[in-house]
């Protein structure tokens, strides 16, 4: 067994040799990290002079189990219920080795090279209360590198609320292993400051009949890459990825998804709704791969963008790689503006122009928020998120 330190040393060497990917790397064509990120980070020692107030940046669900990472260090973990266990990743080097076969992947070697905190969360049964994991950086000098591995046992289920806020650089790799019949509902809320760089890689591996439902909402942040890769290992697996991006200013937000259907009889459904204002730049790169033996796969992928400004920019790169013959796959994308007729219709009913715009834009993202219906505390989450969407829109109106 390779030791953890040995693997980390290897990752450091690769990072030193290759650094961040640039636009010549096909996966990073639209998001050139080498141009925007420093080649080295100084890991700060954590010295919090006062309590960090992050309440109003989290998902705000009272009954949630709370794990807080401040500047990359786990500072708070409430009492865990039966069926949830947390252990240190450093004691499980084989897990890292198993999931990082392809250590040439920049997000992986960069994460491992700088890793500050790594944990393993084991879910062995149905957990009723949602679990919130909040990541916050307290200053522009802070860089946090965290790895979390989730393992859901057969039949286990969890609602995970992940949120990101603050400044600096944050890089999270979360790996999810879902055994048969397990279910993970995963909300990712990205609401960072204008200067933050957030690289969030989320890898999911689904066994038979495992269900993964992801809703990602990005409301702000300087540069963000929200990447999700799902691998379907056995029949019956399903993944739903729904993303709403609302970006303004000079934000650059990149949604990259990869659905890798290795097994027959698996389904996936990817929806992205992007709203861009000012000079924001949005990217949707969605790839669906259906392997040769993966018959009867159903995979749909859809990206819609609403441009609120002529200076905003949207790049869409959908890819279907299908090697099986009996499959139903579809993708579609559209880029448009506010519908002026609809706007007039609402205004003719007494609704002021700003409120009417907000209504149309909320309508545009409501399909995504609607996917939270089945989440634990779904109604509270929807209400909180709608308020934040409205705040974003008021700012940009």
């Amino acid at each position: 067994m390779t030791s953890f330190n040995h693997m980390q040393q290897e990752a450091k060497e690769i990072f030193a040799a290759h650094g961040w990917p640039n636009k010549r790397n096909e996966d990073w064509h639209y998001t050139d990290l080498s141009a925007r990120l420093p080649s080295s980070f100084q890991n700060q020692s954590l010295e919090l002079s006062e309590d960090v107030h992050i309440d109003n940046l989290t998902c705000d669900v009272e009954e949630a189990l709370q794990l807080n990472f401040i500047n990359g260090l786990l500072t708070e973990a409430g009492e865990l219920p039966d069926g949830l266990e947390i252990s240190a990743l450093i004691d499980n080097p084989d897990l890292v080795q198993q999931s990082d076969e392809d250590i040439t992947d920049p997000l992986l070697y960069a994460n491992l090279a700088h890793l500050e905190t790594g944990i393993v969360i084991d879910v062995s049964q149905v957990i009723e209360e949602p679990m919130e994991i909040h990541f916050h950086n307290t200053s522009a000098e802070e860089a946090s590198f965290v790895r979390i591995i989730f393992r859901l046992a057969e039949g286990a289920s969890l609602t995970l609320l992940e949120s990101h806020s603050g400044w600096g650089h944050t890089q999270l790799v979360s790996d999810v292993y879902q055994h048969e019949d397990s279910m993970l509902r995963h909300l990712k809320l990205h609401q960072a400051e204008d200067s933050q760089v957030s690289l969030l890689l989320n890898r999911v591996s689904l066994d038979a009949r495992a269900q993964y439902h992801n809703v990602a909402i990005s409301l702000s942040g300087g540069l963000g890459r929200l990447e999700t890769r799902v691998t379907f290992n056995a029949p019956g697996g399903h993944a739903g990825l729904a993303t709403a991006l609302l970006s303004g200013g000079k934000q650059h937000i990149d949604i990259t998804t990869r659905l890798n259907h290795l097994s027959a009889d698996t389904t996936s459904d990817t929806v992205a709704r992007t709203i861009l204002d000012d000079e924001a730049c949005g990217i949707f790169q969605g790839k669906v791969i259906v392997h040769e033996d993966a018959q009867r796969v159903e995979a749909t992928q859809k990206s819609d963008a609403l441009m609120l400004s002529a200076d905003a920019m949207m790049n869409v790169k959908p890819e279907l790689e299908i090697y099986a013959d009996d499959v139903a796959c579809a993708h579609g994308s559209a880029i448009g503006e506010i519908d002026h007729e609809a706007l007039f219709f609402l205004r003719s009913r007494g609704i002021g122009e700003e409120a009417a715009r907000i209504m149309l834009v909320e309508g545009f993202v409501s399909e995504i928020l609607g996917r939270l219906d089945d989440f634990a505390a779904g109604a509270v989450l929807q209400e909180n998120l709608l308020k934040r969407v409205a705040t974003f829109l008021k700012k940009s109106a």
Partner: protein
Amino acid sequence: MSALLEIKNLHVSVADTQILKGLSLSVSAGEVHAIMGPNGSGKSTLSYVLAGRDGYEITEGDILLNGVSLKDMNPEDRAIAGLFLAFQYPLEIPGVTNMTFLKTSVNAVRRGRGEEELDAASFLRFVREKAKALRLDDDMLKRPLNVGFSGGEKKRNEILQMSVLEPMMAILDETDSGLDIDALKTVAEGVNALRDAQRGMLVITHYQRLLDYIKPDIVHILAGGQIVKTGSPELALELEKSGYADYVGEVVA
């Protein structure tokens, strides 16, 4: 006493094309006027310009509601002032439920009129009662606004909006098109329920049938961007028989 709605020598162009060419018409409180006219004569243009749609330029003339010019008023303020247009082609708005829309609209108008907003419970009671009268079931209130509604359902939904907004001056643009006979009666009942001595209505239609149920006081014929004839309700019956042939020639382009 001045008219409720007064349209004076209205000239309107759309995309540099003159559509309305000196249209005058006045509706007093308590009256229902019908406008009939051939396709493309400018009826919807008139309704849009009354409601304040962008791109409809008034090059001459004026529109007064209760003596106040609407020319520089935006669409929302016209609604607050009491104007309502039932669209010939109602818009679909995905992601916004009919109920949310209605509530936002009613409360925006109430706020604008200096009235108290309705709380969620009283609004629900209010809108349910109105919807029931129009035979629109609760399910239609929960669905996204007009999305997947049938043609007739969309029209009934327009009348529901009118019922909850209680406008002083309503313009109905071909609200009868797409309605089956029962729905036509239901819609007419909804419209008639609002008729009173203070309100006025402008009913645009191609067919006498609607006017059997919503009895107009006055009928106008609009052709070539002008009112070419104004008369009693019998005028509509005449048109039913002989068409517009006698009128379309009268306008000098």
